[in-house]
């Protein structure tokens, strides 16, 4: 799978409502952030957890979120940031999300 995003792209984290071994914590779902770095492509932990080791691999990105966006009562600097790894299928381009609204 070709990575859909690159550093600097703005992305929205989806709330896929999946159960099982998902690696996308609730606190970043439905928030938008900026791709910091392409990490490469990895087997999807959601598949690995149920014994599916056949792939395919999924692009993984490090995404940065403003702390003040994640937490409305955040105490700190506006520049404080949370960096987390997110798999491609949990992300949408922000532009597309805006149009869908």
């Amino acid at each position: 799978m070709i990575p859909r995003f690159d550093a600097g792209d703005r992305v929205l984290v989806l709330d896929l409502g999946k159960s099982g071994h998902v690696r996308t914590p609730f606190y970043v779902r439905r928030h938008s952030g900026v791709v910091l770095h392409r990490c490469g492509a990895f087997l999807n932990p959601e598949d690995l957890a149920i014994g599916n080791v056949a792939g395919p691999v999924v692009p993984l990105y490090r995404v940065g979120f403003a702390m003040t966006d994640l937490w409305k009562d955040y105490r700190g600097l506006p520049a404080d940031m949370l960096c987390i790894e997110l798999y491609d299928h949990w992300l949408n381009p922000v532009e597309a999300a805006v149009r869908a609204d």
Partner: protein
Amino acid sequence: MSDQEHTHDHAHSHDHAHDGHEPLVVEDEAGNIEGQILVDALQTLLVERGLVFPGEVRREIERIEAPGVHLGAKIVARAWVDDDFRTRLLADGKSAVAELGIGVGEAQLIVVANDADTHNFVCCTLCSCYPRSILGQPPAWYISKAYRARAVREPRAVLEEFGLVLPDGVRVLVHDSNADMRYLVLPQRPKGSEGLGEDQLAGLITRDCMIGVSVVGPVA
């Protein structure tokens, strides 16, 4: 009630109030640990059937626990004295530390550098992901639910509880190592350390500085 709580209830009777944290290991009055009894029984069967040699499990635990903070300290000290190494380390952590003969078992090592404007620290909200091949096993607090929840929610309050108050204007970057990457914080080289050699520098570098809940203090 979750499965985990269910198991916990069976481990001992609740005739006392818990004081806000859950024990990492639940023992009965005789010192038995439920999980250990199961593991011992399984291991005895595996040995009896010739599937595992006596001592093999112990040797494997020893192998897993052999890496320690000294490896991380060696990496940081080299980065402090060798700018080219530092550049390579920040670009590709795993390849750079291989130059020092240190193998990283995890997929990738992301090294994040503190500087005058930025302080990095690392947590794993979902479980206990940690750069074990270069720092050893994580401290108990790192895998506690309180640290995991609060590091991403109120990082500055957490740092203050570790005794670290950042200078005005320094931004905080919290790294949630929730998937395939592992993170090492490259602390700032302390004032007063200019005359020290690489080995002496390595002696200044602690585990907590490489997780990012502390900094390397000035050298007297």
